[in-house]
């Protein structure tokens, strides 16, 4: 074996201010097997050149360690650099920024920890072996989920580029929330007039295959080669025959609340989704239909002149093969029932309900009325941030409600020149092109702007809505009576978005919106390669921003699917046939059926989670990118550097990300905690969990993705089982079981990471 080169990065002051790079350099230089270099910015062109030059000058160096920022940040940059001289896997990154310099302030302590982390990486890399690649065919079809404005725009962009697009929409018509709006800021044109042509274009496009009443229920495979299961509910109406004459609706005896109009009016069990829906055909709401539930009626079938009603339609499942997936499943309004906003009162409505009343073809024919008795409102009050910017509801700002409330206040003024119009707000948020100017126009419309947030909406015994509010601008305490109160209700991810997070194993934030790979520099990418998130599924935003997202994702898809073949690293499992006794445990553990009956691993099916490794009693199976020898060597190295360490095993995703977020948010925690990254905690065998204890570690923590969010189906459950066993063994041996901890954690929860580490250290201090 050759020598190992160690590169220490200052990262300007980011690392060097807290970690003594010179001291580390001196220490590591003592080892004759190491070639040690440092650089101000290793990721810079000059830094990378230095790496290449070092490899050129020292022909006996055959592996390297890069001690710098998180691999989540720059792994690809360094991989591409290393690849020019060595196999791409002959290096290891030691994260001394997010996991060290940014979370410690004491220089000596941080330097000691950095030494220990780097020592772990040096030891580990000694066991690295080159990892091969294979070329796999790329499927160039694309799946878009959700046909709101974002999903439709992305579909059209991709279809125009020549990709075949499957557009899956759970409702009976495409169009999403935009079909419900009246006018849209900042241009004030009619929403349906804008969106209708787009819907028709989607329908007519030869490269777009539309699946309505459909949802994705299963996903497997990888970028370039995804297998998707789509379930389609029966429409009970033949799309090719229905002429949308509406006779069925007229005759159907079952009246139901009209969901499209947010329950503001009624429709029938069989109906056309809305005027201008696409496809423009009737459908039957299964739950309401007498024929489907009780076997009686069937009137629609009889009256339909086109013979389109078809009760024989069944739920169908279809397998689609695609190369990339775009998720555009949108938002919904938060339910504010049983809060101080008094949403139970019929005259307290949401922004979207007002939009429905504004639309000329809406439930009130374009008349804005008090839903309780249909009277014309004399006083209309808008209450901003209802449920937003509120830690008891949604902590975030819903982004667009300032703008749409201003829009609707203007519309109210135009409709009711003599009405009193109030708006209670904390501050008005109108950034972005033309938005402040839009607000300025509204200020000319004689709207009472009250700078304060009401505490509670109530009604008088005779039913008048009122609330008290303190106006900071006039310094006056006001009692505001209103006929109609419009809440700028907080937006949250739609139920469909939440379901997709589960089915597609996508990461979401504490706010439950799908979270991007990187908020700044990879805003539509996700942690899963080939899956993109756009529009309001990612966070509350305007139509304009949703469209920007859609274009960005279409471009990302085009990039990733540009070639017919892709080169994939073989970061997969491999079986040693000499050791394997064919006991079947690995095959049972694998959720991807990647191990054949003849005990060979199918590289294209294997995800590299390592769950099989954790169960093999013969040590016969390994994953190439994290072998037992590598894992143990890393733990040894860390403990050599700092014998008082707590080993924190983390998943590649949630666990490691949470530790990184603790770093970027500068959340200090005890330096004894050292992170060891695994693809999935399912990789851990009982022995792996106990190993650090044998070597004298103070404790072991396991940071797993929450159950149900494991990126490899059930790695968390598998790890928890091993953890319980390990506890039993520790107990038998008389070791304090509290030194071993299992924590489920979500990516954004740096705070929980910090808290868990502090608790562990606090506990260890107490028992010493």
């Amino acid at each position, binding site marked *: 074996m050759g020598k190992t080169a160690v590169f220490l990065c200052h990262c300007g002051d980011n690392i060097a201010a807290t970690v003594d790079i010179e001291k580390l350099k001196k220490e590591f230089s003592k080892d004759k097997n190491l070639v040690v270099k440092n650089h101000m910015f290793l990721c810079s062109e000059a830094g990378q050149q230095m790496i290449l030059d070092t490899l050129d000058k020292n022909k006996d160096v055959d592996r390297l360690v890069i001690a710098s920022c998180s691999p989540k940040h720059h792994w690809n940059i360094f991989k591409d650099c290393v690849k020019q001289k060595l196999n791409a896997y002959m290096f290891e990154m030691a994260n001394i920024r997010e996991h060290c310099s940014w979370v410690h302030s004491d220089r000596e302590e941080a330097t000691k920890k950095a030494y220990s982390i780097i020592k772990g990486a040096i030891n580990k890399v000694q066991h690295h072996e080159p990892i091969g690649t294979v070329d796999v065919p790329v499927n160039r079809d694309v799946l878009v989920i959700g046909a709101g404005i974002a999903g439709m725009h992305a579909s059209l962009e991709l279809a125009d580029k020549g990709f075949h697009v499957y557009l899956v929409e759970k409702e009976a018509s495409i169009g999403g929330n935009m079909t419900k709006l009246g006018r849209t800021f900042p241009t004030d044109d009619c929403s349906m007039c804008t969106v209708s042509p787009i819907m028709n274009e989607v329908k007519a496009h030869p490269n777009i295959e539309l699946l309505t009443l459909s949802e994705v229920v299963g996903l497997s495979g990888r970028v370039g080669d995804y297998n998707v299961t789509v379930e389609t509910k029966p429409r009970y109406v033949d799309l090719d025959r229905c002429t949308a004459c509406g006779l069925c609706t007229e005759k159907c005896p079952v009246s139901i609340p009209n969901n499209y109009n947010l329950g503001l009016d009624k429709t029938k069990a069989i109906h056309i989704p809305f005027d201008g829906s696409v496809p423009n055909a009737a459908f039957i709401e299964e739950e309401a239909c007498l024929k489907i539930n009780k076997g009686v009626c069937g009137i629609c079938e009889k009256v339909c002149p086109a013979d389109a009603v078809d009760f024989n339609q069944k739920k169908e499942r279809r397998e689609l093969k695609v190369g990339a997936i775009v998720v555009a499943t949108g938002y919904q309004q938060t339910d504010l029932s049983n809060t101080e906003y008094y949403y139970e009162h019929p005259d307290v409505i949401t922004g979207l309900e007002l939009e429905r009343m504004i639309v000329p073809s809406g439930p009130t024919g374009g008349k804005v009325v008090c839903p309780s008795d249909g009277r014309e409102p004399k006083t209309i009050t808008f209450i901003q*941030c209802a449920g937003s910017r509120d830690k008891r509801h949604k902590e975030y700002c819903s982004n667009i409600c300032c703008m749409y409330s201003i829009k609707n206040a203007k519309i109210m003024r135009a409709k009711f020149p003599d009405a009193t119009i109030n708006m209670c707000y904390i501050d008005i948020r109108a950034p972005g092109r033309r938005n402040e100017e839009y607000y300025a126009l509204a200020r000319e419309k004689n709207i009472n702007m009250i700078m304060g*947030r009401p505490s509670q909406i109530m009604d008088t015994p005779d039913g008048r809505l009122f*609330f008290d509010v*303190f106006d*900071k601008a006039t310094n006056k*305490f006001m009692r505001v009576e209103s006929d109609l109160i419009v809440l700028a209700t907080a937006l949250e991810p739609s139920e469909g978005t939440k379901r997709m997070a589960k089915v597609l194993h996508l990461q979401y934030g504490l706010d439950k919106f799908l979270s991007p790979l990187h908020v700044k520099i990879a805003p539509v990418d996700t942690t899963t390669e080939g899956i993109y998130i756009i529009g309001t599924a990612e966070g509350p935003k305007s139509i304009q921003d949703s469209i920007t997202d859609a274009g960005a994702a279409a471009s990302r898809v085009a990039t990733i699917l540009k070639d017919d073949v892709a080169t994939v690293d073989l970061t997969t499992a491999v079986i040693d046939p000499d050791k394997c006794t064919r006991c079947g445990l690995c095959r049972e553990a694998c959720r991807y059926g990647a191990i054949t009956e003849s005990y060979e691993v199918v590289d294209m099916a294997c995800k590299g989670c390592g769950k099989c490794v954790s169960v093999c009693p013969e040590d016969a199976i390994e994953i190439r990118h994290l072998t037992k020898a590598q894992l143990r060597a890393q733990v040894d190295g860390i403990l050599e550097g700092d014998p008082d360490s707590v080993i924190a095993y983390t998943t590649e995703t949630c666990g490691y990300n949470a530790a990184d977020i603790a770093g970027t948010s500068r959340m200090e925690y005890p330096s004894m905690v050292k992170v060891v990254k695994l693809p999935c905690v399912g990789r851990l065998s009982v022995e792996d969990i106990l190993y650090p204890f044998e070597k004298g570690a103070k404790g072991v923590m396991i940071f797993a993705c929450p159950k149900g969010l494991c990126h490899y189906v059930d790695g968390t459950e598998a790890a928890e089982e091993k953890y319980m066993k390990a506890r039993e063994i520790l107990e038998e041996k008389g070791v304090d079981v509290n030194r071993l901890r299992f924590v489920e954690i979500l990516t954004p929860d740096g705070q929980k990471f910090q808290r868990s580490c502090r608790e562990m250290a606090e506990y260890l201090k107490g028992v010493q």
Partner: protein
Amino acid sequence: MMGLTDLFNMSKPEGDKQKELIRQLAVLGVKNPSLCFQCAKCTSGCEAMKLLELQPHSVMASVKTGFLDEMMNSDVIWACVGCFKCKERCPQEMSPVDVMFILKNWYVMSGGSLPGDYQNLLQGILSTGYIQEPVEVLDKDNKGWSREKLGLPKRGHPKNINGFMSALSQLAAEKL
């Protein structure tokens, strides 16, 4: 009120007093007042606003800017009736009512005397166990309700009033 406030000399946002306030609030599980974003929801619902023009949001603003001495010595903090609505409704999980309790305690500890009404209240508690003896309360429809009408038992009173008084005084002494 003064015409121009000299922020440099008057207010000490990072002073010891403020740190102590933050520490005492943390003991109560309440966060740092500097998280208050001045939405005035507390004042909009404040019972004492209606009667005595208390503006809890403004107390919070003063406290976060460092005007702690001024607030501690001002009359406004004594207007709070302790209904806890501000704490209940605050979207930022602040607690003006706790801030004011702490300031009131400090004021008394520093030798300040209780405002007149409070003396009476205190006397009432010491002699009867109650701030006041409510006879009837009104509901939303202005209908009066007594315990009797609601079929509730009569309220009790401290049996050993001297023992009760000395226990309370002892507790107060310990707390201070």
